[in-house]
C-alpha cells in the first residue's frame, strides 16, 4: 500500500506541528494554516484524506468542505473541533459530506484509526467509480456489437438468401442436385440464430418501454410474418380487448412471436388440419393469452426443461433458444407462463402479463 496523502488545515500552527510529529512516519502529510492555502495544495496534490479544524478565522471547516464539494469530491473528510458544537455537527453531517467528527485534543490512536478508515472509504469510492466506468464502457460496446450484428453481420447473409430466391425464380434451384436447397437451409438456420441472439441480448439489456398495445394488430402482424413460409396452418383468433393495454411492446412481440412460430413449426407432418388457436383476453389488471396447437406435443418429462437455455428435444430441429427467450422476457415484465401438452395431441401455452395502465 502506498503512503496515504493527508492534508491537515488548522489556523493554530502548534496543532499542525503536533500532528506532523505524531504521524509523519505513517503518512505523507501536507499542512495549511488557512482554507485558501489548503485549496492550493488540493489543486496540486492528489490528496486522499482531508482533516480540517472547524474553528478558523475566515471560514469554518464545514464551510470549507462545502466549498470544495464540487471541485474535489473524492478526498474523504474529517472534521476536528475543540468544543462540542451541536450546530456544527448537524451542519457537518447534513451538508459537509463528512466522514468523521473528532474532538480536540485528539487521541493519537483514535485519529490514526479514523484516517485509516477514511482512506479505506476513499479507495472503495474510487474503485466503485472505476468499476462503474468500466461497466458503462462494456455496456456501450455490447450495444454497438448488437447493432452491428443486426446490420453488418446480417446484411450479407440476407443478400445470400436473396440470391437463392432469384435462383428459384429462374428455375435453377434443382439444377445442381440438392446443393441450393442445402445452402438455403444453412442460410435460414444462421439467420434464425442471429435473430434469437439479438432477441436475447435486447431482452437482457433494454429497460422496459411502456406503450399502448393493440393485440388485434399485433397478432395479425405476427401471423402474417410467421405463416409466410407455411400456408397450411389455419389460425383461429379470438381477441377481446375492450380496455386499453399498456405494456412493453418489444418484449410482448418477442414472446408472442416465438410462441406463434413454434406453434407453426412443430406441427405433425401428416396432419391434414393443422390448427393454431389464439385467444387474447384483455382485462384491467392483466392480459391472458392462450396459444394452442394440434401439433406434435411435448414429452411429459421434457415439460420442465423446455424453458432452459439450449435444451432441445432429439426429435426436432430447434435451437433451444426460443422458449428460453420467452421465459426471460416474461421475467422482465412480471409475466407468467404455463404449459400443458399431450404427445401428438398438441400443446397449449397460457401467458399472463400485467396491464401497466
Amino acid at each position, binding site marked *: 500500500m502506498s503512503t496515504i496523502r493527508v492534508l491537515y488545515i488548522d489556523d493554530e500552527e502548534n496543532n499542525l506541528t503536533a500532528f506532523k510529529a505524531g504521524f509523519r512516519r505513517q503518512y505523507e502529510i501536507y499542512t495549511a494554516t488557512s482554507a485558501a492555502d489548503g485549496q492550493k495544495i488540493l489543486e496540486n496534490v492528489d490528496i486522499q484524506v482531508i482533516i480540517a479544524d472547524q474553528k478558523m478565522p475566515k471560514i469554518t471547516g464545514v464551510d470549507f468542505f462545502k466549498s470544495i464539494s464540487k471541485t474535489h469530491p473524492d478526498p474523504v473528510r474529517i472534521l476536528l473541533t475543540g468544543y462540542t458544537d451541536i450546530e456544527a455537527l448537524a451542519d457537518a453531517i447534513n451538508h459537509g459530506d463528512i466522514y468523521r467528527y473528532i474532538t480536540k485534543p485528539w487521541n493519537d490512536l483514535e485519529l490514526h484509526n479514523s484516517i485509516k478508515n477514511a482512506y479505506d472509504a476513499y479507495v472503495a469510492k474510487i474503485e466503485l467509480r472505476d468499476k462503474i466506468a468500466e461497466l458503462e464502457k462494456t455496456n456501450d460496446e455490447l450495444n454497438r456489437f448488437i*447493432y452491428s450484428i*443486426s*446490420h453488418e453481420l*446480417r*446484411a*450479407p447473409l*440476407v*443478400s445470400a*438468401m*436473396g*440470391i*437463392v*430466391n*432469384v435462383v428459384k*425464380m*429462374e428455375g435453377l434451384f434443382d439444377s445442381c442436385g440438392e446443393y441450393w436447397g442445402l445452402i438455403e437451409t444453412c442460410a435460414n438456420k444462421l439467420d434464425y440464430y*442471429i*435473430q434469437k441472439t*439479438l432477441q436475447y441480448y*435486447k431482452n437482457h439489456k433494454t429497460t422496459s418501454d411502456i406503450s399502448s398495445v393493440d393485440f388485434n394488430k399485433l397478432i395479425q402482424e405476427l401471423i402474417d410474418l410467421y405463416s*409466410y413460409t407455411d400456408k397450411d396452418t389455419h389460425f383461429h383468433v379470438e381477441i377481446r380487448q375492450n380496455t386499453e393495454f399498456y405494456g412493453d411492446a*418489444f418484449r410482448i412481440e418477442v414472446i408472442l412471436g416465438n410462441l406463434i412460430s413454434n406453434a407453426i413449426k412443430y406441427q405433425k407432418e401428416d396432419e391434414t388440419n393443422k390448427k393454431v388457436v389464439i385467444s387474447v383476453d384483455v382485462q384491467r389488471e392483466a392480459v391472458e393469452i392462450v396459444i394452442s396447437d394440434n401439433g406434435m406435443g411435448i414429452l411429459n418429462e421434457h415439460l420442465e426443461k423446455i424453458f432452459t437455455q439450449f435444451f432441445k428435444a432429439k426429435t426436432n430441429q430447434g435451437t433451444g433458444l426460443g422458449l428460453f427467450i420467452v421465459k426471460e422476457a416474461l421475467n422482465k415484465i412480471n409475466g407468467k407462463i404455463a404449459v400443458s401438452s399431450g404427445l401428438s395431441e398438441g400443446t397449449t401455452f397460457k401467458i399472463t402479463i400485467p396491464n401497466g395502465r
Partner: protein
Amino acid sequence: MAGKHKKVMLIDDNEVDLKINSKIITISKLFEEIIVCQSGDEALTYLNKHQDDDERLPDFILLDIQMPEMDGFEFLEVFKRFPDRLKEKCLVAILSSTLDFGDIKKAEANPYVIKLLKKPLFPKELEQLLGKYFS
C-alpha cells in the same frame, strides 16, 4: 397490372442487393423499368431533375435504411420537402435487413413510408403491397 405502375426506383448502397432486387423485379414483371441509385444523394438528384416530368418520375421507391453518408431516414427528411404532387406519385417503401426495434418503429412512424419490407425481398409480398396501392 403492368402499365399502371411503370417505374420503380431502387436506392441501396449494396451492389449485390441492387442486382438481386433488380432481377427479382424483372423476373416477376412487377415494373417495366428500374431506376437504380447507389445513394440517397443520387436518388435526390434524379428526383430534382425530373420533378416536373411525370414520365420520368418513379411510381414507387424502394429505400434501404443503412447507407453511408445519407441513410434512409435522412433521405426521407429531404424527400418530404418535395411538392405534394411528387410525393403522391412516388410512394416510398423501406426495404431493409434491419432487425433493430428502433429502426423498425421509426420506419413505421414515418408518414411517407407506406410499408417496411424486409430483405430478402419476396416478389409475392411486393405484389400484395402494390395491389393495395395501385388498384
